[in-house]
């Protein structure tokens, strides 16, 4: 009924060495992750791969390993195709980490995972419960990458790097920003596809980060709404690195699998604007609530399936005028803004019907901001420049075009596009705008800085983060759904499963953790002696 939902955002950051485009991105990324981890180094907790099953498919079958592309085997870094199981032995782990840079993998006290994915440093936020917290821990990720960059620059012998929160190099490569939403497994996957495809096609009007260049390799000059749209080639599928699908079927809940599905959304852009990120998460969460309740069928957004979904995704992205008509399967033609209006209308009626006056502030905020940003985009696109990345970016680009008479293939405009998401305040153009008060901020910056070190209190991320903060040297490994202790007096490692994302909250375990001065005390308390 509400926007409250277990959610996490993963971002693969772009990484570069000025003047050396050939530098090895895996080593650079490992350097970044390890530099951030360095102060707490020594015996670092490793990632526990025990419950990872990236080849499990929401449609109900499991891909055979032999049929999978090596890049799909996310549970076996350094042993692609080997199907590594967690070896509960600390010395194995130490060996693996020194042998293979792709093992650079840290679990942070804020509950996040910071590691090397493919050829990028990736920040996977802790599980949060509200859209505002999704923004808060996503923004904390930007500060973590900035700190990592500073530490690399300050360490003699390391190669200074630049880091960008974007999704393409404009030359044919794309890297992802994924949203993860926990949802009810009982919801038929066909309904997920039917209702989310039109939603994802149309939400680009406020989730797009903006991009100079049309086509995967920017073959055509111009500007488009989304960094990612041109890299999507099919409607539904399991892949994430090639033939990318609008609906990704990876079904690896990191939670009790017979109750939950993790909806893995790969079609979004990395956004800097706090309002855009809030809306990306909040509106999607509301649509999922309606889906789970079966409340979309028969309503204003009951059947908006485009006749050609992939083409529609591209066309909407390529039209900053927002007048492009999407042809629907039933013959109607609608603009993306009209499609979003239909979802908003359905969501309003749904919240009014189910909650009425009891609707919570987070849900009301998302409804109000959703309506507000659609109205701005309908009346005068540039009036959304304080809330929406692509509009703010386009405003700068148009400023340059008119002042300096630049054409869309100008390198200067492409530089503006790239520098938009530079994480350094002295270089990043979004950060310059924020400093000048030209974008709308939702969060107290102090709360973002706090989120760098501290976990959300209302999900299991609290237990993970607090265990690392309090008993770090005794935590041998951890993952989304486990914390593993190596404690004195016990021969084997002690694995604490955390399969229920809403347990392990401060309310649930805060007092227990306060009572346990050591990891030994905690393990004893959990095992009843």
């Amino acid at each position: 009924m509400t926007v409250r939902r277990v959610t996490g955002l993963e971002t693969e950051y772009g990484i570069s060495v000025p003047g050396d485009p050939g530098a090895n991105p895996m080593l650079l990324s490992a350097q970044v992750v390890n530099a951030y981890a360095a102060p707490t180094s020594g015996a670092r907790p490793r990632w526990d791969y025990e419950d990872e099953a990236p080849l499990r498919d929401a449609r109900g079958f499991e891909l055979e390993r032999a049929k999978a592309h090596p890049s799909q085997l996310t549970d076996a870094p350094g042993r692609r195709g080997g199907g590594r199981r967690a070896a509960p032995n600390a010395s194995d782990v130490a060996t693996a980490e020194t042998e293979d840079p792709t093992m650079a993998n840290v679990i942070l006290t804020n509950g996040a995972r910071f590691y090397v994915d493919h050829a990028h440093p990736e920040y996977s936020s802790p599980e949060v419960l509200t859209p505002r917290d999704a923004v808060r821990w996503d923004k904390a990720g930007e500060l973590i990458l900035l700190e990592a960059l500073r530490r690399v620059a300050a360490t003699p012998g390391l190669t200074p790097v630049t880091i960008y929160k974007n999704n393409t190099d404009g030359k044919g490569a794309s890297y992802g920003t994924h949203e993860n939403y926990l949802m009810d497994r009982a919801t038929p996957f066909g309904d997920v596809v039917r209702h989310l495809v039109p939603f994802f096609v149309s939400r680009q009007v406020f989730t797009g980060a903006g991009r100079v260049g049309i086509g995967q390799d920017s073959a055509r000059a111009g500007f488009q709404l989304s960094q990612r749209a041109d890299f999507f080639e099919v409607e539904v599928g399991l892949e994430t690195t090639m033939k990318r699908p609008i609906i990704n079927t990876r079904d690896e809940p990191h939670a009790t699998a017979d109750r939950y599905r993790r909806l893995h959304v790969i079609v979004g852009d990395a956004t800097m604007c706090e309002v855009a990120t809030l809306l990306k998460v909040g509106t999607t969460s509301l649509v999922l609530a309606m889906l789970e309740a079966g409340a979309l069928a028969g309503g204003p957004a009951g059947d908006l399936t485009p006749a050609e979904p992939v083409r529609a995704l591209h066309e909407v992205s390529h039209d900053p005028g927002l007048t492009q008509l999407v042809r629907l399967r039933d013959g109607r033609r609608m603009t993306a803004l009209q499609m979003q209006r239909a979802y908003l209308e359905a969501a309003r009626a749904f919240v009014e019907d189910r909650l009425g006056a009891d609707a919570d502030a987070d849900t009301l905020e998302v409804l109000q901001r959703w309506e507000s940003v659609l109205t701005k985009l309908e009346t005068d696109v540039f009036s959304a420049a304080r809330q929406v990345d692509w509009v703010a970016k386009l405003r700068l680009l148009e400023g340059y075009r008119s002042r300096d008479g630049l054409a869309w293939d100008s390198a200067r405009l492409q530089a503006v596009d790239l520098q938009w998401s530079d994480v350094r305040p002295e270089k990043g153009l979004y950060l310059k705008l924020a400093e000048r008060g030209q974008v709308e901020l939702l969060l107290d910056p102090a709360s973002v800085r706090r989120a760098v070190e501290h976990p959300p209190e209302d999900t299991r991320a609290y237990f993970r983060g607090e265990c690392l903060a309090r008993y770090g040297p005794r935590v041998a490994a951890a993952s989304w759904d486990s914390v593993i202790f190596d404690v004195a007096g016990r021969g084997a490692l002690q694995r604490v499963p955390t399969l229920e994302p809403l347990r392990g909250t401060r309310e649930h375990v805060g007092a227990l953790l306060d009572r346990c001065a050591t990891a030994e005390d905690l393990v004893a308390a959990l095992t009843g002696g």
Partner: protein
Amino acid sequence: MPGQEQQRPSRREEEVEETPVVPAQASAETTETDADVDALLDEIDEVLESNSEEFVRGFVQKGGQ
């Protein structure tokens, strides 16, 4: 497609290869911020990589997820 183009500003048809539609009509709010944009551009000039071409050419990524 002809049905769609009627709805667009005519400027687009002339420049469609090069230029996306730039959302028309500056509202009062937009006009007020034009001076801000100019001041902002001056500030951005200071931080923008001085050799744009080399900077853009050098930004090469490997694909990810």
